[in-house]
């Protein structure tokens, strides 16, 4: 039996009241519910406040570069399809610096889960606009208001008919835990965009602001792409949470020419095959 304690408890570098604390708890809770043991999971992150999360879990950790969690996670999953690979980083990391990788991950449909802590601001670098900051929102770096349109990760992922697209909120822990479980269990790429209040730098999107707007739509069929598209465009008038879209298509790993499912570590070249290949150049 796996318990919360198995995943350790660490002192964090996060501000008191930050949404990251509850997300961390939900992640642990989800792992326990799935009875995953620490050594079976590999958490991959980039750089930022959210990206520190894996350091506060007793598990395998690959804390790489800003924006590069997804390519690293892809390499890890390809090298060991048996490991549970979870990428966990902020909105700046995933949708800004790592934007191209996000698009590629949606296309690849590799069996990796992305937990994107979406606080609509840059936390670690102290409050600049992030790709998901609302147009017009004032920040220290954009004193006249953010001039760019907010990126809609859920909308883009649904548009791409990605494996599984969900939204959770750090202030609704049971629901978030359920989303994380579903995402990890989904075979293929899964995104959980997690609304995460940053109490220090985002004075607009607070716990109260989200609470007022977040709702769980009734009778939504995540297989229905048109409905999902419509939901993914809702925001100010109400922010839908839950599994917005889910598709069942072959994963990237399954589509490889030789989906052995075995860790590459166990592959040693056969001398006979080497000789055959070499002699084909005679």
């Amino acid at each position, binding site marked *: 039996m796996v318990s919360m304690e198995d995943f350790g408890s660490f002192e964090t570098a996060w501000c008191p009241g930050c949404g990251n604390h509850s997300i961390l708890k939900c992640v642990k809770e989800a792992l326990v519910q799935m009875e995953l043991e620490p050594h079976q999971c590999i958490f991959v992150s980039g750089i930022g406040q959210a990206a520190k999360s894996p350091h506060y879990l007793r598990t*395998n950790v*690959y804390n790489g570069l800003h924006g590069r969690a997804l*390519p*690293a996670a892809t390499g890890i999953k*390809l*090298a060991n399809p048996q490991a549970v690979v979870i990428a966990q980083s902020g909105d700046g990391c995933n949708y800004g610096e790592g934007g191209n990788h996000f698009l590629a991950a949606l296309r690849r449909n590799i069996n990796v889960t992305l937990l994107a802590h979406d606080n609509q601001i840059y936390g670690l670098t102290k409050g600049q606009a992030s790709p998901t900051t609302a147009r017009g929102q004032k920040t220290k770096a954009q004193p006249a208001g953010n001039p760019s349109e907010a990126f809609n990760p859920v909308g883009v992922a649904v548009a791409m008919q990605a494996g599984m697209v969900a939204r959770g909120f750090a202030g609704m822990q049971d629901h978030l835990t359920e989303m994380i479980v579903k995402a990890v269990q989904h075979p293929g790429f899964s995104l959980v965009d997690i609304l995460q209040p940053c109490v220090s730098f985002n004075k607009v999107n607070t716990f109260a602001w989200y609470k007022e707007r977040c709702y769980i739509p009734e009778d939504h069929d995540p297989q229905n792409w048109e409905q999902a598209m419509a939901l993914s465009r809702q925001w100010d008038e109400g922010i839908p949470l839950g599994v917005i879209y889910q598709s069942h298509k072959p994963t990237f790993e399954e589509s490889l*020419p030789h989906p052995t499912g075995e860790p*590459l570590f166990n592959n040693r*070249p056969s001398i006979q*095959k080497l000789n055959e290949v070499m002699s084909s150049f005679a």
Partner: protein
Amino acid sequence: MRRELNILIGGEAGQGLVTVGELLTRALIRSGYQVHVTQSYMSRIRGGHNTYAVRAGIENVHGPAQGIDILVALNSETLELHREELTPGAVALKDKNAQASDLEAVDIPFADLAGSALYENVVGLGVLSYILGLDREMPAGCIRSAFEQKKPEAVDKNLEVLDKAYAFASKSGVAGFNLDEPKGSAGLMLAGNQALALGALCAGANFCSYYPMTPSTGIPMTLNSYARDFGMVVEQAEDEIAAINMALGASYAGARSMVATSGGGFALMCEGVSLSGMTETPVVIVVGQRPGPATGLPTRTEQGDLNLVLYSGHGEFPRAVLAPADPGQCFVLARRAFDLAEKSQGPVFILTDQYLADSYRNVHLPDPEILEPVASPEVCGEVQEEYERYAFTPSGVSPRIIPAMSRCLVVLDSDEHTPDGHITEDLQVRKKMVDKRLKKGDILKQEVILPAYTGPQNPKDLLVCWGSTRGPALEAREIMGSENTAVLHFSQVWPLDAEHFRDYLQRAQRVVFVESNATAQFAQLVSSMVQPANMAYVLRYDGLPLDGQYIADNIL
């Protein structure tokens, strides 16, 4: 009878000159000749002026040579562009329809003999093989091996055309250029890129991520064709940044992993190089050089990225840079690169260039059975509660365990970290970690490949070169006089130990640095360690490879 010959096939891209060239090269290699192929092409898929130069000899031919003994012109432009290069007694062959002003050239009715455009290159192959005095069975065998698997129905038709070409050539009265009996034995026909891919396979490489860029694309393309048999993953990433991060992720998770790119793509990878240094994750990085800056001359050659590779990645960490001289070394050094990457747990580079990437030779490879196994990480079966990925050890190398293969937890971090891999801002730990990482440089120093010296003890001129310029330098030595010229070649350009070359540089009256770049990057590096009394340079940076005569003629 001739000891060696230079054959140049020229035409537009899309005219099949590469097929003629490759089939001819294979026939020569199978006959036991030494060959040296220089491919020159323009950055376009159709049209343009491309050449495929085959130099064949009864003994070692080290590099490209000037002068053309047999010119095969698939269009009139080729005749005009290369007529000045014809040697006395040379023969020019041209398509019947190509215009040839006042140049005497043998007309070949390519279309009539072939019957279909598809087979025109076999006409070229047949006529050339006849002129070189190759038994018809040689080109015939090459045709069979080329088509038997892929297009068995094409074999007979090709052989028919080959016979017509032989019959035509024998009646045409064209002079024969029979080569002497070869002194060597038939090896494999390998270009740099292919040999490098085979070396990687032989090292157990099973992960390659890349984003296409000339001239390195041939490496993943070659690997691709064996991926299934070797259980290898070859992934075309969304960009070079993704490619190196994927390779590092895969390496962390236990794959033997590599990337292949060129200077422009490598510029994007530099952040990942630094990550490899910080996280102590092995990775092999192949940089096939081509002229820059920026997109430069996409299909030409240069050795202009030495400094980029030497100093790539921010921060301080050890690295090794290997620079193979020829396809044979591409194989051996590719294998070595994986071994060094694992032993030092960090990035190891292989610097090639377009000239080497595309140059075919008659190569004898070592038997994989007798090669030392490549170093491997540990996988631990038992629970090691206290496992520390970055444990301090006397060598600086910490036991590397693969995550998710046992109950050990493996924590890796791009931030400065404690021995157990967690972020730290403890400045004492920081200092210890820097020392630990740099300590691994000693392993690379111990394993460094010594520079190879050829020539008399106290030469008048010492030609110093690295990477693919060895062949041309050795030829220059013959031209300049082997009794007073020596060559010092580096197959590894970093790390360097002055002890290994100080004497050579000081014993020569003059040290001539030979490089395919404009600023003598290697000369700067070497002379910062040992300053020779008298320095000269041969630097070529017009996009074409160096050759022996060019070096001899251009010592500044």
